[in-house]
């Protein structure tokens, strides 16, 4: 044993030094575990949300966890230069930008009936000439039911199917709506707007606000929508009988020729909310027609170009920036996890002796 001596630092409490080492290492490892969320499994995370989609709707291997049923489309965007003074993004300079897109209905079930929901969605990926991209996911509703990820999760939780009936408990949903009056404008909109008879005659709205940034760095708060050239029509009784009329109708229509929409940009007035998707901006706001979306081809989502695309609305070219809308980051995080899981399932199912998915049809689809 060494004799204690103040001049020899080696002798000063070796256990204390060892404890200090353990403390440093423990703090770092503990901090990492906390940052990863392992110590707080109840904290709302991308995992909580995607796990809930899976428990509500079942796991459909290789499919998107939401908006699972859809089809791919291809075409281009013909910019007229109308938005180029507001945004420096190349996509708004006059000229064509190739587009890969996807039409879908909300929900986690890839075999759901088209009539199961009144909403349709359009997702687009613009591939700019220099390799930048603009991805956007839009719905036929111009506003969203909830404002924050927490409210979204509460809604998801309230929609859990009752094991007895296989359907959400109406009482739970009523309680959720009563506790969240911000959902009222969305519910009123859905009640007042019957579903479209086609993917092609509906308007699609980029529910969240964004900023356009011009060449001088000037920022403009905007929302965008795709307004169809075809007149809106509601679902007929005949269509209501078919579970897959939306995809079939689009294939048939595209045989006759391309389908077009106008990209209409709404410009916010000062004071218009940019972080609240439950509130629309007044219709009187300045509208810019930025050009025409021309869709020319459709393909199955099993092998179309949209199959492996994650339509993350925060993938934006220089000239478009996300707003402070809390749903944007949440969508990005949740979509990334959904993409990770379905590509993983695809990779595993593609391996020679991989176990089959629940149904053979699902195993083959993505």
């Amino acid at each position, binding site marked *: 044993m060494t004799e204690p001596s103040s001049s020899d*630092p*080696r002798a000063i409490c*070796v256990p204390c*030094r*060892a404890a*200090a*080492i353990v403390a*440093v*290492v423990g703090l*770092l*490892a503990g*901090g*990492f575990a906390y*940052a*990863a*969320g392992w110590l707080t499994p109840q904290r*709302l*995370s*991308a*995992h909580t*949300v995607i796990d809930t989609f899976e428990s509500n709707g079942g796991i459909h291997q290789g499919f998107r966890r939401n908006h699972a049923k859809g089809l791919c489309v291809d075409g281009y965007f013909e910019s007229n230069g109308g938005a180029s003074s507001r945004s420096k993004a190349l996509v708004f300079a006059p000229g064509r930008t190739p587009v890969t897109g996807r039409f879908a209905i909300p929900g986690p079930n890839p075999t759901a009936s088209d009539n199961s929901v009144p909403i349709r969605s359009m997702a687009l990926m613009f591939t700019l000439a*220099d*390799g*930048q*991209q603009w991805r956007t996911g839009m719905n036929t509703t111009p506003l969203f039911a909830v404002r924050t*990820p927490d409210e979204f999760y509460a809604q998801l939780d309230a929609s859990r199917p009752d094991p007895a009936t296989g359907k959400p408990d109406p009482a739970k949903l009523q309680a959720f709506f009563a506790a969240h009056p911000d959902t009222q404008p969305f519910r009123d909109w859905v009640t007042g707007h019957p579903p479209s008879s086609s993917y092609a005659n509906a308007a699609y709205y980029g529910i969240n606000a964004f900023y356009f940034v011009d060449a001088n760095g000037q920022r403009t708060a905007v929302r965008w929508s795709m307004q169809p050239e075809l007149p809106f029509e509601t679902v007929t009784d005949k269509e209501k009988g078919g579970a897959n009329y939306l995809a079939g109708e689009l294939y048939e229509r595209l045989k006759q020729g391309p389908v077009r929409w106008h990209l209409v940009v709404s410009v916010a007035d000062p004071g218009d909310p940019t972080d609240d998707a439950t509130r629309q901006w007044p219709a009187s706001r300045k509208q810019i027609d930025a050009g025409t979306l021309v869709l020319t081809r459709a393909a199955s989502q099993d092998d179309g170009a949209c*199959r*492996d*695309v*994650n339509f993350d609305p*925060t*993938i934006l*070219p*220089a000239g478009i920036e*996300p707003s*402070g809308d*809390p749903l*944007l*980051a*949440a969508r*990005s*995080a*949740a979509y*990334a*996890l959904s*993409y*990770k899981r379905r*590509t*993983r399932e*695809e*990779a*595993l199912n*593609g391996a020679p002796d991989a176990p089959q998915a629940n149904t053979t049809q699902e195993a083959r689809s*993505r």
Partner: protein
Amino acid sequence: MNRPPLHFSPVQRWLHWSMAIALLAMLFIGVIMVSTLTQAHTTLIALHRPLGIVILALVLIRIIVRIGRGSPPLPDSVPPMQQTIAKASHLLLYALMLAMPLIGWAMVSAGGYPVTLFGAYHLPPLVSADARLFAVLRAMHTWLAFALFALVIGHLAAALMHGLIKRDGVFSSMARGHRR
């Protein structure tokens, strides 16, 4: 007579400590950004890619410097077995520091995403878009990140052991230069 140096060169020490900060920041950014649903997700992703490229550039410089200048030998008091473990763990650290940014870059490319650094500035894809390759690289990026974190922790614990308990000059070879 040329004696082997007792300390790493100032450039090596600068590289070591700046990379130590960058790596730890990167590991924490990584685990937070994939779980959080808050605005931090967007901010951290925007930080993760350019910081990864900075780390890639630094590790390339570091490898060149290390090959050129070498490292101070471990003292004879360190038993041969530990010397071997030390060498192997350093080799692994270098391999992971090099592999992680490259896997990340390839993974983003395989996912069909633009490899955005800042503004319109983006890198060319390292591989073409392929969902299965994405799946493999995505899994590798996660598990190797955990392996790297474990190695960093082990490296830190060993360094502190040398610095606080053994006091054999191993820690000070990276902590400071020649001062008598």
